[in-house]
């Protein structure tokens, strides 16, 4: 018996110690069907037995937009780079929703799925990935609303002038999903042990929105403070998005490289921490 076990080749191994970057991407790929089923589950469990179904996706951005128009547009009179207020705010809301939804949900992925994670093994990375993809569906629906408004202002009102930068949209989305994934994985890993971070995150996201040009334009900020907003990797993404669809505002293509750099670093940190925590989080969650 000892002879066989020493000479035998082993297909897989469970070790107590792992290297930092031991993520098995091949395994994640093998579980791609699970990712799709989880997306389907999210969709069904949210909208089954609601009368309006996905129409609810429209209600939230429209109401938020109306409030922003009244609050920031009419009362505070924040400049919008000359773009109509409705389409200006809606553009910010549409992509911010995607980011904040992805981030909030990936941040609690370990706690929300403890019941499943405690019983079955599958590459844990599938769960946050499915969240980001689920959020993409919601984004897609809200995006059609945004496009309809853009078309109205372009061809009927002639107030905005979309340009070729709109082709960058998929890339901007990818950047945002990677950013929320990276940040979300860091938070979800830390919250399994340190629950305090949950509180930090809930109001942190609200505050973060004001550090991102969602309701204002970067040009309307005093130059002294602009660096704060420019340090935010989301800023260039929002600026690029607005510049493409509204044809207004300032946008420096080089700032996108800064965002890419920050996002790649955060994502790597996130993946490493997540990978470390996923193997033993059931003991502490």
């Amino acid at each position, binding site marked *: 018996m000892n002879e066989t*076990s020493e000479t035998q080749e082993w297909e897989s191994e469970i070790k107590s110690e792992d290297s930092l970057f031991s993520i098995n991407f091949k395994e994640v790929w093998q579980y791609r069907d*699970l990712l799709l089923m989880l997306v389907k589950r999210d969709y069904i469990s949210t909208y089954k037995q609601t009368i309006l179904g996905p129409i609810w996706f429209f209600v939230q951005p429209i109401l938020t937009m109306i409030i922003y128009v009244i609050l920031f547009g009419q009362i505070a009179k924040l400049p919008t780079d000359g773009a109509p207020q409705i389409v200006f705010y809606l553009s910010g809301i549409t992509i911010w929703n995607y980011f904040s939804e992805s981030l909030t949900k990936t941040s609690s992925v370990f706690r929300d799925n403890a019941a*499943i994670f405690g*019983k079955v093994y*599958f590459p844990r990375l599938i769960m946050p990935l499915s969240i980001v993809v689920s959020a993409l569906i919601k984004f897609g629906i809200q995006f059609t609303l945004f496009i309809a408004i853009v078309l109205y202002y372009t061809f009927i009102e002639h107030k905005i002038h979309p340009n070729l930068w709109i082709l960058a949209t998929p890339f901007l989305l990818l950047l945002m999903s990677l950013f929320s994934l990276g940040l979300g994985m860091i938070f979800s890993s830390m919250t399994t*042990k340190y629950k305090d971070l949950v509180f930090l995150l809930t109001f942190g996201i609200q505050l973060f929105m004001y550090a991102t040009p969602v309701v204002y334009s970067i040009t309307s900020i005093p130059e002294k403070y602009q660096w704060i907003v420019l340090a935010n990797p989301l800023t260039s993404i929002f600026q690029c998005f607005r510049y493409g669809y509204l044809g207004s505002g300032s946008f420096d293509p080089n700032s996108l490289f800064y965002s890419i750099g920050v996002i790649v670093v955060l994502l790597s940190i996130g993946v490493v921490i997540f990978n470390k925590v996923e193997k033993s989080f059931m003991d502490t969650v």
Partner: protein
Amino acid sequence: MKKLAIKAENISKQYRLGEVGTGTLSHDLNRFWHKLRNNEDPYLKIGDANDRRSKGESDYVWSLQDINFEVEQGDALGIIGRNGAGKSTLLKLLSKVTKPTTGNFKMNGRIASLLEVGTGFNPEMTGRENIYLNGAILGMRRQEITRKLDEIISFSGVERYIDTPVKRYSSGMYVRLAFAVAAHLESEILIVDEVLAVGDAEFQKKCLGKMGDVPKGEGRTVLFVSHNMSAIDALCNKTLMLENGRVLAQGRTKDIIAMYFKSNSQEEGLFDIGRIDDSEIVVINQSKLMNQAGVLTNNFEFGDSLTIEVELESSEYIKAPYFWIMVKSMNGPMFAATGMLDGFRPEFLKEGINKIKCTFFNPQLLPGTYYFHMGIRAEDGLSLLSKSKDVATFNVLGSLVDKGLNGTLADSLANDSISPLVPYQWEFENGQIYNFNSK
């Protein structure tokens, strides 16, 4: 020499007791500081053996310590031990739900682990959608599920409801569907927790049959954890016994089971049971077997009446509970005394210690090894007060030849005997007596 499917080397698992919170950060920083200087983790040196009855010194306990074993391909390995011995932890490590503190497992072949059936079932989704979801969670590919879909649906026996959300299912249907998916999982290594304890009888038989086929064909390797010695006996050719996180013994199933019962009994015929599950309201402390002469023993003569006396500890006053006591062979139930059928129920169980006795008259059991299995249900007949489990084992002595059976099949016949209806008597400590005699 056969190839190995699993090899466990020096597996240990340490858990931190009490609140994980205060002190966590300081321990983590201390750990990190030691790691920086290339020192060993200071918390690995401490820790008590996992004996929850004694109050330990340290905040850390070793749930498993220095576990080594090998499983050959095609083997069915049973894992037994008292509650808290480390069985579930071992399965969790093997299922990759959490990782070992030290040591490693080496494995050959695709692993499927069933610590639970129906993991991830979503109440809003239909039966069909849940088959896909649950299958995917268990690691099946979409086309693999599609290929087996008809088989799974017909195995579950819920064809009519397959496009209805599972929240409308009865709990039995829900479990059937969950089992059906699990039963169709293809893997070289199958890890099963005591999930077979649920579901209805017909389905259990169907599933046990399916499970029983597993190690025989396909060279599949099975690891099975159970409190149910008769199930272990029927399914597994080898068994591993854990106690306080260490391997106490491993070897042929028959030997280890005998040892398990022996280690739980101070004398022959006396078995300590204790709490099996944290949810139990009534704990079966101890069972005693007595022969016709009232002598404590676990060896019976052919035709001896069988008496079992059980000591129960109830955590509250309970009105009119249902009891059932069943005699089983490794092939399944033989005969039983069931309150649900005969209508007998003790008026009440008082808080604290209660005793109940049941005698089967002239059971005519053929020579062999048998088990007593019992459970207790609440007054409503639904909720379990005490998990149904094996509480004692006994031998019937003699040979078939003595009984005048000397045909060529006499030896194998003992395992294939027909269930008889045996007259019996219930006797509760307050003097309540009930006699059952078939007419």
